């Protein structure tokens, strides 16, 4: 959280995150370029430029695969949430590694010609009508452009400027980039003489990304079914049964799903209950999976905080989220499904005062 925009709001965890990432990248490139060629079974060495373009290209592919795995991993197991915290740096580094790969391609395959290298890149293979021989470079260019746009707009300034829904939609184009990269590899590198290792690595990467997203989707669907009671119990008075007080841990929340995938987080804290929307104003993080720290709801993704009674970020921050009215009958929590405007104060329900 910040009240002013700075290029990077560094903290110890971000520094450790970036350091681990840089070490992994450096190790990958060093082994690929310096160590592994000693184990190659080749008559003459592969050109250095080709070796480096393959090293950076494959590194970017694996990084992109990892980036896409972080989201579902964090949904399936909260211990992966620290990976999500600084994922934008992961993305920016991936765009940089991919750009180096592209630069080697331009400086090697499209160099040494009277034709300008950028013109040559777009004009030397135009067999768009065929699968084998398709200009797979175009797919790589498309993916790289998306990565550049996402890296350039990854800062919170753009999130605030574009608004969370548009920003989120824009950044979902990472999936188009990944699809383009997979096709780029499938129609290019994988069309060489049979190489089971690269084929296996690419296949395993795609299966991993798809499998994790599928598993997360199933988990979310099961969760929706488990919360169907709230939707099914809509009453004439306009209240829904949200559950029992005992279901909620102290300083934690129970998430209730209303119609049209709207989710509400009901927090129990200091002998009180308050309800707010489950979506963080920052990046739609699941607030109901966060905790109450220092009297504020704290988002599990990036630590954005909100007051429990009014959904406002503590001063000097300005974010606001919707609040909801609650009612307690015995030990049963009732929820008014009508969201109140963001920042509306709602008196917390005091436990022990139920009728």
């Amino acid at each position, binding site marked *: 959280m910040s009240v002013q925009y700075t290029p990077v709001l560094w903290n110890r965890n971000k520094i450790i995150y970036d350091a681990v990432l840089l070490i992994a990248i450096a190790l990958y490139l060093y082994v690929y370029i310096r160590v592994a060629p000693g184990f190659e079974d080749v008559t003459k060495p592969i050109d250095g430029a080709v070796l480096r373009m393959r090293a950076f290209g*494959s*590194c970017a592919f694996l990084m992109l695969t990892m980036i896409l795995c972080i989201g579902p991993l964090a949904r399936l197991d909260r211990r992966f949430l620290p990976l999500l915290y600084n994922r934008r740096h992961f993305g920016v580094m991936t765009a940089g590694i991919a750009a180096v790969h592209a630069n080697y391609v331009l400086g090697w395959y*499209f160099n040494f010609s*009277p034709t300008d290298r950028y013109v040559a890149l777009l004009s030397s293979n135009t067999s768009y009508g065929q699968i084998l021989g398709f200009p797979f470079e175009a797919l790589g260019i498309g993916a790289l452009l998306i990565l550049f746009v996402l890296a350039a707009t990854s800062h919170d300034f753009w999130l605030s400027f574009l608004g969370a829904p548009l920003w989120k939609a824009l950044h979902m184009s990472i999936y188009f980039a990944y699809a383009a990269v997979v096709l780029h590899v499938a129609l290019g590198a994988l069309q060489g003489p049979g190489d089971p290792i690269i084929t296996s690595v690419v296949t395993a990467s795609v299966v991993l990304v798809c499998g994790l997203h599928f598993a997360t989707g199933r988990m979310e669907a099961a969760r929706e079914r488990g919360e169907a009671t709230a939707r099914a119990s809509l009453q004439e008075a306009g209240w829904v049964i949200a559950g029992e007080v005992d279901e909620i841990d102290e300083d934690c929340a129970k998430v209730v799903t209303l119609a049209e995938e709207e989710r509400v987080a009901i927090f129990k804290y200091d002998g009180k209950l308050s309800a707010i929307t489950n979506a963080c104003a920052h990046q739609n993080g699941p607030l109901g999976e*966060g905790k109450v720290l220092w009297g504020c709801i704290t988002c599990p993704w990036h630590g954005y905080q909100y007051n429990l009674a009014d959904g406002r970020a503590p001063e000097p921050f300005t974010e606001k989220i919707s609040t909801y009215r609650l009612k307690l009958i015995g030990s049963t929590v009732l929820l008014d499904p009508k969201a109140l405007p963001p920042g509306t104060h709602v008196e917390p329900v005091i436990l022990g005062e139920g009728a």
Partner: protein
Amino acid sequence: MSWKQTKDAPFFVGYLNAVPKPLAVFALVFSLCFAGGMGLAALALSSTQNDPGNGGFQWGNRFEQAGLLELRPYPVFRVPGDGENAARTYMVSGQGKNGAFGPAEANAGTPVTLRGVPVNRGELTMIQVGNVEATEDGVGNFTPSEAVPLGRWKLAGEICDGKCYAGAMRPGQGLAHKACADLCITGGIPPVFVSTGPVEGRNFFLMADKDGNLLGDEIRDLLALYIELEGEVERLDDLLVFKADLSTARVLR
């Protein structure tokens, strides 16, 4: 671990330096696995790359011989035989992705001394032209032999650019190299058909169209694919020329 938050579960807040110990241990183990996995992936991917062949520039074996430059239809250099060696025909190219049409056209029919760098892969030698000078040394009465027809053949293989395939780039063939091959051939580098089966012991052929003329844009979609082609083959000293009938082209894979 359930998505549902509990009171006792460790909770990570990025901007707080104090990370709960279970999460810190998990992150440490994951970091080691991630970095180690990246290193192993690099080793596996890099050490198993395909052999690009033995082609390459022969920088320590500069070429300097007297002979005649001809267009057949791409520039070739005809060198007379002597008592020990038979006459030879070399494919030639310019620097980078440029052909050698300029010096070949300027010196057509004139004996010259050609200096350059051989790019060699097996029996395929492409000379990258450095300097061409008129000469009379030893080739004053040299009349290159006519092409010897070897009949009509159906060949399976790949159209490459002769310079990269010879070893100017390693690797210098395959679909990943298609755009480069296109750029080279467009620039005037002779196209070469690399066949899976030999003709008179050779599995590479300088290409021409079925009438013996330069190939045009019609080969662009066929470049770097595994194809089957029919055409007349003829021998020019030690170099085989494949006059490909592109209407017979069939993609095999």
